[in-house]
């Protein structure tokens, strides 16, 4: 039997057109959540169906695709999406942030600064930043329409009252272009400043919630805060164990069951580039030799 032939990038052309219209509207109104008719995709919700549909709609034959999951090019989710487009669109793929034209991401923004012409596609689980305090969709839409964002500060107030500081560490709300409050997807707040005045186009797709929103290049993105509790970034206070970087976002990796752990860059491409350039930390990235079975 012959392998099934897919339309380019899996989705049919009508669907892609519909999604592109939503994307154009989203770009025209930065931070505004545009509803779209999200399709069933051959992967479960929560695996990036929103991001995949956005990527499918914007991908051209000449594009070079990079997919990361929590900063990493080599996790299951990243690999399967990369393979998906390799198979259905036949586009070139890469792990290099600099070489990619389209980067689909889950929960991170690459460390290397993006350049003009690139598109960063975020996978979004819950697009509505007001949802946890206001369960009614009719009401949150009205609040966006009228720019009534007092409630967003209620969340931050609660953090300070309970923990003494703004403890929200990811999905930290931002205001886009001085108008719409937006959920930046569950990226760590460490990444928030990278969204501001970014040279690349940033697109957000929420498949289950059927929303697309966008930050056009060079748009102002401000993290919400209080005058006396200003926004701060957060990272583990350690250099990367592999490349020695002291300015990258780190993952904590448990290395044994006796409390051993190490901190390494969450952005694997960034870390590898640095190691290739001769930087190194306290540990080696060389694969551990398995003990030979006797």
């Amino acid at each position, binding site marked *: 039997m012959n392998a099934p032939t897919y339309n380019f990038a899996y989705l049919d052309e009508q669907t892609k057109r519909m999604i592109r219209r939503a994307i154009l509207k989203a770009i025209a109104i930065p931070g505004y959540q545009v509803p779209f008719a999200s399709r069933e995709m051959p992967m479960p919700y929560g695996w990036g169906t929103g991001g995949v549909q956005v990527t499918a709609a914007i991908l051209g034959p000449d594009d070079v695709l990079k997919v990361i999951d929590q900063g990493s090019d080599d996790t299951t989710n990243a690999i399967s999406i990369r393979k998906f487009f390799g198979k259905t669109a036949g586009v070139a793929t890469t792990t290099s942030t600099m070489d990619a034209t389209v980067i689909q991401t889950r929960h991170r923004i690459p460390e290397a600064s993006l350049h003009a012409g690139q598109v960063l596609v975020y996978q979004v689980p819950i697009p509505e930043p007001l949802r946890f305090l206001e369960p009614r969709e009719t009401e949150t839409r009205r609040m966006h329409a*009228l720019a*009534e964002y*007092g409630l967003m500060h*209620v969340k931050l*107030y*609660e953090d300070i*009252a309970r923990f003494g500081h703004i403890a929200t560490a990811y999905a930290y709300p931002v205001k886009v272009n001085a108008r719409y409050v937006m959920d930046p997807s569950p990226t760590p707040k460490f990444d928030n400043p990278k969204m501001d005045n970014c040279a690349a186009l940033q697109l957000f797709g929420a498949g289950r919630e059927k929303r697309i929103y966008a930050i056009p290049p060079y748009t102002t993105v401000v993290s919400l805060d209080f005058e*006396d509790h200003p926004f701060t970034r957060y990272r583990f206070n350690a250099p990367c164990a592999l490349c020695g970087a002291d300015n990258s976002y780190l993952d904590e990796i448990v290395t044994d069951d006796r409390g051993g752990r190490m901190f390494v860059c969450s952005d694997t491409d960034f870390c590898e580039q640095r190691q290739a350039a001769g930087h190194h930390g306290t540990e080696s990235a060389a694969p551990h030799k398995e003990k030979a079975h006797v």
Partner: protein
Amino acid sequence: MSELANFDDDQPLLVAEGLGKNYGRLAACRDVSFALYPGEVLAIVGESGSGKSTLLQLLSAQLAPRAGRVSYRMRDGVLRDLAELGEAERRFLFRTDWGFVHQDPAQGLRMGVSAGANVGERLMAVGWNHYGRIRDTASTWLDRVEIDIGRIDDAPKTYSGGMRQRLQIARNLVTEPRLVFMDEPTGGLDVSVQARLLDLMRNLVGELGLAAIVVTHDLAVARLLSHRVMVMKGGRVIETGLTDQVLDDPREPYTQLLVSSILPP
């Protein structure tokens, strides 16, 4: 009542003209007209189904009237037809210059959010952006409504009924509104808790020079809180006047029935 604001100020704050509202063939509210002046407390009394809650919703622009109109004097001194305000203006009015105290505090509070944030929300909504000042103001208001400052970080779902109602009042008054709507504010509370709440509201209304429209079926509440009373029956205002006048010298058969139905203390 003895705390009166300045009644020489001759410009009404809110004016209702020929208000009417139907639910199908049922006329819930018919031809209601009156003017409310700054600092004046008006009680709307009548039994269930008399149309008083519908009237409150019409007056507070939560319901559009079939006939007539409601005008409000904005802070710039201009009397504006509420139906002609944009939704943004109306909602802004609602969280700054107006308060609304619901009978059920769960409707007026965020039950899962701390008391401090409940009070602070209206401040944050008008652009307050300094945590310390928001918290200080919230503390002051909790104190004014006699809630222990030690409970500031507790959510109202851990509060008693009377505390919740007092918290709701603080949440409404923190932006220093000029007009507060109250829908059966003491309904569902124990008698002793009611007395404390009434006393508190009476003092706050007097100190702040608030105008208020209080819907109640409890004539004792009307007597203690209001300057003026409107008696409703079948959607109509059947009698209106000074509170003690209407309660001590009722003219209409229905008002006489209401007054005579009070058990002597």
